[in-house]
């Protein structure tokens, strides 16, 4: 038996689905952000694997930039959470329903 690209892609999509479940399931915004990190990491595995099997560096570059993007998102996301927490004392998304319809 040999590990093929398909194995990695399946793993990647399984992890992505776990991330999706987390995104839909979490009410605590901090934990929700964890789930979005999982989404991006799942994709990174896929990119690295494709790069390996295609013998091409581009995939690794994409993964590299995705890591950078994930890091920046954390900074802005935490900034938003801090402001919100200072105002409301909570980071639960169920409190944010002042706008609807």
């Amino acid at each position, binding site marked *: 038996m040999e590990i093929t690209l398909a194995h990695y892609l399946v793993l990647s999509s399984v992890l992505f689905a776990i991330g999706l479940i987390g995104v839909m399931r979490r009410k605590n915004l901090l934990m929700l952000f964890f789930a979005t990190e999982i989404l991006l990491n799942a994709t990174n595995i896929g990119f690295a*694997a494709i790069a390996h099997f295609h013998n091409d560096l581009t995939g690794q570059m994409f993964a590299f930039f995705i890591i950078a993007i*994930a890091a*920046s998102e954390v900074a802005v996301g935490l900034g938003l959470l801090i402001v919100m927490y200072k105002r409301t004392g909570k980071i639960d998304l169920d409190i944010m329903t002042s706008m609807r319809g």
Partner: protein
Amino acid sequence: MFEVVAFYLFAALTIAMFTITVMTSQALYALTAMAAGMIFISAFFFMLGADFLGVVQIIVYTGAVMALYAFGMMFFDTTRTMVEKRENPRTIFILGVLAATLVVFIFISPIISTHLETQYPLEAASGNSQAIGMILFTKFLVPFEVAAVMLLVAMIAGIVLAGKKMDKSLTLMAEEEIALMGANEAKPDSQEGAH
């Protein structure tokens, strides 16, 4: 054989860790499980010959991102058990599993292509890091610089949002109040005279 064992072992571990991350009600468990998951992912990178990526993964995620999140957890005081209201948990799982199944359904069929061209081949002679460096500062110079701008933006945004000036909202204050506040603050510190 080693590769097969390693793949399945790390796959199982990563899936387990990330499942804990999204399922547990303890924020601390979630954080540590995610950190572990990230490290296991870097194992894949090493297996796939992406040494540089593996190192970056460990440094950026476990070094920087996790530290930020840990700080956030302390700030938000989320170390105790989280109570989260659940609505239609079944729908969520059906959606998640469905998404995975559908994509996997496609992924198990092999990719048929005769036109794949390698643009930036991995060279056995030089190490991964050198190759990365070479391509990063030629072809991907522009995205690299834009990424730098992006990090700067993220930094400014983070600092501004978390800063002290956000405590009072000029948007909601009447003009007179603002004028009064400006007068008070102008005296001790002219840097803050913007108000």
